[in-house]
């Protein structure tokens, strides 16, 4: 793997950038691998990368029905934070956040992790109680998250409307300064390049059509549109399609997949310095390096794999954006799109072994998966390599719904992920 640097660019500049090597290879699938990862999104590619780098397992294939990073990884609003309430959630998201910091150097690929601060707004007394509960829990968990007065919030984010006459006036906010954004494509491509360089096969346009199991029930490989591929271990990291793949293995999941929409505005000069989230009025906004306002909308109400949603969902979101930032009504929506998010009953992920020997699943991230990418891949690689969960993901079992040991951030806090 040729190292990226400003010098490499200068060298290439001399010869018209014809010397760059492929960032990842596109090999033909082998007959068998030690591990097959289903899904070449950020989580799947990170899993393969850490299997190779941490556990020395390089006989790995990542199968992708479309193009790597073309699913939710390339469709989300790239918000990164770890100020979650419960120890379990805080554990995994902060594990990820620690990896984000330094990921560009780790991968020698600029993922543009930008800790510009994530602010969550309180609009009523209940919000204050909930958000302060977060601040206190985070503090005792060693996670930075501070309370801001409305004035301090406006100072940090000048476009914010803190007028008392607003329909839902801002009564305060939390701020996690380590929170921020990263470049979604770069995350997928950086992990792909790193994994590929270590011998991992990334096989695109290869859709899994079945999961093969031995008489003893254990996984033996997967049927694909490019033929059968054997493996002793299969990790399913298929986001919105997790139910579909798991059903092939005979495992029914506590999941539902919904359309999630997002949009960007036309690019403008820097006007929005941080990430702002409001769960009461349902608005999530930041500004990309390119200058586009990046705005996350809500999910549609019905199960769908169509990757499209209704206009009224965008309306609802832009209502809130323009209420909080009244100067933006003259801004223009440039592009809108939809992803498919898989949601569990407690809105927390499942990162675990399954009843099927050799089958592992990483799913249920709902609307909050991007921020967890490095941590999720890191502990899922551990779970597959050791056939035993890492302490950090041990609580995120499938069984918790039967026993009732839920990790229900939303119920506990009415906070969207």
């Amino acid at each position, binding site marked *: 793997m040729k190292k990226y640097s400003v010098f490499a660019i200068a060298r290439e500049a001399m010869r018209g950038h014809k010397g760059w090597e492929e960032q990842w290879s596109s090999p033909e699938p082998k007959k068998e691998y030690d591990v097959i990862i289903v899904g070449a999104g950020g989580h799947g590619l990170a899993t393969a990368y850490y299997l190779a780098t941490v556990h020395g397992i390089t006989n790995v294939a990542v199968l992708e029905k479309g193009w790597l990073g073309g699913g939710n990884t390339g469709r989300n609003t790239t918000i990164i934070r770890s100020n979650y309430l419960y120890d379990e959630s805080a554990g995994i998201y902060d594990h990820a956040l620690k990896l984000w910091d330094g990921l560009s150097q780790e991968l020698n690929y600029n993922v543009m992790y930008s800790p510009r601060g994530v602010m969550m707004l309180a609009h009523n007394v209940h919000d204050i*109680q909930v958000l302060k509960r977060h601040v206190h829990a985070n503090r005792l968990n060693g996670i930075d998250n501070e309370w801001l007065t409305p004035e301090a919030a406006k100072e940090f984010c000048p476009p914010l409307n803190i007028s008392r006459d607003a329909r839902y006036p801002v009564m305060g906010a939390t701020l996690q300064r380590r929170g921020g954004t990263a470049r979604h494509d770069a995350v997928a491509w950086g992990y792909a390049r790193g994994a590929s360089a270590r011998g991992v096969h990334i096989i695109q346009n290869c859709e899994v059509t079945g999961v093969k199991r031995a008489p003893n029930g254990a996984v033996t490989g997967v049927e694909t549109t490019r033929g059968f591929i054997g493996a002793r271990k299969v990790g399913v990291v298929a986001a919105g399609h997790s139910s579909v793949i798991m059903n092939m293995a005979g495992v029914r999941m506590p999941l539902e997949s919904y359309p999630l929409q997002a949009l960007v505005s036309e690019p*403008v000069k820097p006007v929005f310095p941080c990430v702002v989230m409001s769960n009461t009025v349902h608005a999530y906004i930041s500004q990309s390096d*390119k200058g586009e306002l990046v705005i996350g909308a809500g999910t549609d109400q019905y199960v769908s794999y169509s990757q499209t949603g209704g*206009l009224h969902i965008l*309306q609802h979101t832009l209502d809130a954006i323009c209420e909080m930032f009244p100067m933006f009504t003259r801004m223009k929506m*440039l592009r809108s799109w939809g992803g498919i998010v898989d949601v569990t009953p407690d809105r927390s992920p499942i990162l675990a072994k399954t009843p099927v020997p050799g089958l592992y699943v990483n799913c249920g991230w709902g609307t909050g998966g991007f921020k967890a990418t490095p941590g999720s891949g890191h502990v899922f690689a551990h779970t597959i390599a050791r056939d035993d969960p890492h302490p950090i993901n041990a609580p995120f079992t499938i069984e918790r719904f039967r026993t009732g040991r839920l990790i229900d951030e939303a119920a506990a806090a009415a906070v969207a992920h």
Partner: protein
Amino acid sequence: MIAAFRIPGAGRLKQAETTRFSFDGRSYAGVEGDTLASALLANGVHLVGRSFKYHRPRGFLSAGAEEPNALVEIKRDAARKTPNVRATVQELYDGLTAQSQNRWPSLAFDVSAVGDIASPLLSAGFYYKTFMWPKSAWKNLYEPKIRAAAGLGVAPDQPDPDHYAARFAHCDVLVLGGGAAGIAAALAAAETGVRVILADEQADFGGSLHFESGAKVDGQDGFAWAQGAVATLKAMDNVRVLSRTTAFGYYAQNFVGLVERVSDHLPNPDRELPRERLWQVRARRVVLATGAIERHMVFADNDRPGIMLASAARTYLNHYGVAVGRNVGVYTANDSAYAAAIDLKKAGVGVAAIVDLRDNPTGPVIDEARALGIEVNFGRAVIRAGGKLRVSSMTVQPKNGGGERTIPVDAILMSAGWTPSVHLFSQSRGKVVFNDETKRFVPGIYAQDCVSVGACNGTDGLSATIDEAYAAGAKAAKDAGANTVKGTKPKVDASESWSRGMLGAAPGAGPDTTVKAFVDFQNDVTAKDIRQAVHEGMRSIEHVKRFTTNGMATDQGKTSNMHGLAIAAETLGKPIPQVGLTTFRAPYTPVTFGSIVGHARGKLFDPTRKTAIHPWAEAQGAVFEDVGQWKRAWYFPKPGEDMHAAVDRECVTVRKTAGLFDASTLGKIEVVGPDAAKFMELLYTNPWEKLEPGRCRYGIMLREDGFIYDDGVVGRLAPDRFHVTTTTGGAPRVMNHMEDYLQTEFPHLNVWLTSITEQWAVIAVQGPKSREIIAPLVEGIDMSDEALPHMSVREGRICGVPARLFRMSFTGERGFEVNVPADYGEAVWEALWAEGQKHGACAYGTEAMHVLRAEKGYIIVGQDTDGTVTPGDAGLDWAVGKKKTDFVGIRGMARPDLVAKGRKQLVGLKTKDPKVVLEEGAQIVGDPKQAIPMTMIGHVTSSYWSENCGRSIALALVAGGRDRMGETLYVPMPNGTIEVEVTGMVFFDEKGERLNG
């Protein structure tokens, strides 16, 4: 006088220069009907913008919505600034003020243009490969620089004073696009009498008839025919004609979003007019007549101002009467550019040469060009354009190499052919197919009830287009239910048609060059960037697009997508369809947030719900808090009182004499029917069958998973009638929850639910003097403790109006809740207030209510419980019917972890220092000395200063809490650890004697 490049007699506009406008501070004159672009060109201005990455000088590429370069800021006043407006679609009005963007200090001299010199370093995706050291530098150094350089215009910084309107509309046939095809389709459909809507993004209908001088329909010039036909349509009352209206999104089941620009083209719009109007149209059938967009030629420095699409130059001439130069060159792989050259030549503009990449094309336009004395070169390429702020020459070379020749020109007209506008078709989830012969994607498999006609369907020539469109319009009407088909198809007398063209890079930008041959102008994506992306392993067009940003600018690749795709395919050595086409996403062209938000701003952002008693509280100077959509009186400060003083006074007064509280926002549901009690048994944990009519009971509702969902006091008015109350925030979801079970799981029960939340205003009168206050106003209800004990309800009259009087208490004091029909609420409150005054009673708000209930250990669902709390956790086991065999939640609450030891339980907390008030949400630990991360065993759910107790009080969820009575726990705060003792939840009148006191 007339502007230098306005040709007398040419075009369709009245050439009286009545319209003044300014660009970058210089004032110019234009004529009515101009766009900002045509007016600037008339004045010889080509340089209007700077590109995104290299800040290269840019002019006008097009005359329409596909414009990537000519983006300006339009400013009516300080608050009416709009960035990134396409000068090619902005209609001119008197006094228009425009400014160029993305340049400093000036358009002609832009410092950031050094990016152009450094451009070899700024190759595709370069930012992924550097700026990584040192770690902190990305956020602190590199990113701010990149951000400052990026972005185009400047966002408005003041609230928008304009307003936006919205409308839902329905029709049988929706025709999108008002060129010849759209008009013909609309005519055919309209004549059948069905409801038709015809929309076009431009000010005038006609589409390509704006420039096609050769078109004749029904004996008239094509454009004139279009105006006549549209006038006919406007006159029909089954037709709505929308100009300046862009269909931006095609959603499921023929639901189309359109934005109509209502006043941005007016000099002094009436402020009553909205700026824009959103149309959300549901159509039985949709006819797509969205036309085609001309492609540019990809060659070195093809972005110099003065280089534009041939059809654009033709539009400026034939419609606006403007010449884009005095001595123009033409570079084409397609006949349509010849027509432009011919029109310009005839208008007296010098045409230096036509350079045609094709070897030996033949056809009437070529002969005509020659006949007019225009130099025509075949098999040659323009390999370079000269000039910087304005093109000055084109360098020509045989396409297979050979001698160069440089021809001085002041404009170059390009045409690489035409791309059908399949954007909306693709948004409708239809699948396009690639026609290898014509080298274009055209509609293939349809997913919705729509049809494409004309150029967007790959249909060439006016006659074929009108035949196809007229038939399609008639069929759409028929499919939508029309029976009468009459009317006559427009007759095409003369028409223009041209052949294919080319995709990808022309020889001048051939594979081995390092020149800048632009594919995507605005994002500065060149042919070599796309090749580089492929070399770096980007095999799908989605990857190429994201890596190079080709097609991701504000024009969304209208001119660049096909070229980019072709270059990628060529580099990969694959046929185009195998590389795939990027998906088209809404919006077709950018739409303002305002138009999508419509009326939902300020007061209409979200309803503000106020009780009948709200005006009284407001007059008393109450401070309100938001609870859901409701405004609730929070506290009633007297002059000089802060919140604490007011709340302390209210709390003490209630317990000393009495207080009045507006409880109207509580949800209320009337449950009526012979099976009412059975239903209540199933929806609540408590037993109900034996509850006597006239008595009340505190009820708990669970979700099926066993966690507390809602609570409230329920009164039984009659054997078959319950008056149920819910929490304020819970009212709607509780009603839905009840209906769900009633309709889906228990449909056999004869019982009905009616929301009466807003039928009744509710006045709580609490305190030792409460009965004295109410009694004088009551008729027909015996208020003695014997006749009306705690937790009972009676119907009667108060102040002469019907009332439901509850004897109940959320304060621990003797208390009542007076329900009267809402319109009487305020007057009854005033009467009770007058009585209360005699006893020194006060009005109290939600804060005092919270303190008073906490003193008694009454919980608030949603504050002391949070969706993970069982009745057992909350110490409410007593409210769960032990003998019951079924109720919602009975199974969920029996799951292993919900009955496990060590669950968090609600308890009371007393700080060792009575003066210290804990913070709600504060976390509790057993060992304050442990290192971070600490083991947290619970958190404070409610915490107040209790003036009545003379100390602080708190409720908390603590692991194994009820086994920790008397235990000392710790609340670590940033400024020190607070010691607390675990206690029972009742802090005041533990025996509960005051209920009858």
